């Protein structure tokens, strides 16, 4: 006598009626061995459902909250980045216009400013393209990232104020702040990539 296979026993337990299932049900109803096997299957599933709920060995909420905060901040400065960059372009133009007396020096300054702004834009795009799920940040990485993003926010605020500065210093200040911004973005990139390597991607 041919008894039911495990696939057929499992099919009997499924809702709906696949082809052949009715015949398998009829067989199980009159075959003691298949009936017993079906009951063991039911019991096994019941025991699986009754297994204890496993819990994490430590409270991870603080790390999750920090991670969520880092993400929110990143989204915020991604949104405001365009405004800051538009302002920077205006400042670059202002630097050119203010120093008519020294055309050679002004060209050098504008070129340098444009280079550093371009580098900043490239790094922002690279950071935005990193998958946020590439790896969960541990507590130390969250601390480093948060500190860098706070400093970045501070630099962005100073960049916004450059146009209000004394014309004699704002060219130099604009270049210095944009360099600092690039340095911070570089460090952020390193922090993210180090974490990505650490988790094995």
């Amino acid at each position: 006598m041919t008894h039911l296979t495990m696939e057929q026993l499992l099919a009997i337990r499924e809702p709906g009626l696949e082809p052949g299932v009715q015949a398998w049900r009829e067989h199980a109803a009159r075959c003691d061995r298949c009936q017993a096997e079906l009951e063991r299957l039911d019991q096994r599933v019941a025991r699986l459902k009754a297994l204890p709920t496993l819990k994490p060995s430590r409270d991870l909420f603080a790390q999750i909250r920090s991670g969520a905060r880092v993400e929110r901040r990143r989204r915020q400065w991604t949104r405001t980045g365009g405004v800051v960059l538009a302002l920077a372009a205006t400042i670059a133009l202002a630097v050119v216009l203010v120093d008519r007396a020294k055309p050679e020096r002004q060209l050098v300054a504008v070129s340098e400013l444009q280079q550093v702004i371009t580098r900043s834009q490239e790094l922002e795009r690279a950071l935005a393209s990193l998958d946020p799920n590439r790896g969960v940040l541990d507590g130390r990485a969250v601390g480093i990232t948060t500190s860098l993003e706070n400093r970045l926010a501070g630099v962005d605020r100073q960049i916004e104020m450059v146009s209000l500065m004394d014309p004699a210093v704002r060219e130099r200040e604009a270049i210095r702040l944009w360099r600092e911004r690039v340095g911070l973005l570089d460090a952020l990139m390193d922090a993210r990539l180090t974490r990505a390597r650490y988790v094995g991607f």
Partner: protein
Amino acid sequence: MDAFRLADADAVVHRVLAGDPEAQESLYRAFEAPVYNLARRICRTAEDAEDVLQETFLEVYRSLSRFRGDGSLWGWVRTITASKALMRLRRNKYRDTDELHDDVTPMRRDDAALRMDLEAALQRLPETSRAVVWLHDVEGYTHEEIAGMMDRTVSFSKSQLARAHARLRRWLGEEAHA
């Protein structure tokens, strides 16, 4: 899974969307255990399950505005968890040890000392089979849903479940009674 339902899910969702940290914690406390349990049942290690737990909640906070409220909040969170855990299985590319389980270390039917308890037997299953067993038998996903989550066919899901139960039956010493 009504046991995991928040007392006032709608209010908590709105508060989380508004950036309320207390609501974020309420959501975490309500679903921490079932999310970790599901992740741990699918992942090989506790460390992987903890990573899935964190990734799941970050995704929940990030995507909560897309939760439509037409199903249970736990159902939505559970699907994110299962998806993250399965993604981690694929990423880690653990060597599937089917052959080892079946042929290299066969278990003698009459050796009661070698019989495993269900917890150990479940852990011994290859991760894909274990994931299918858990998602189907415990979480109640259909073969169609599991196939969709794993990017495989319905037949694959059914055959994995059958192979897993055949192994569990053998490892638990149930053949001796057949």
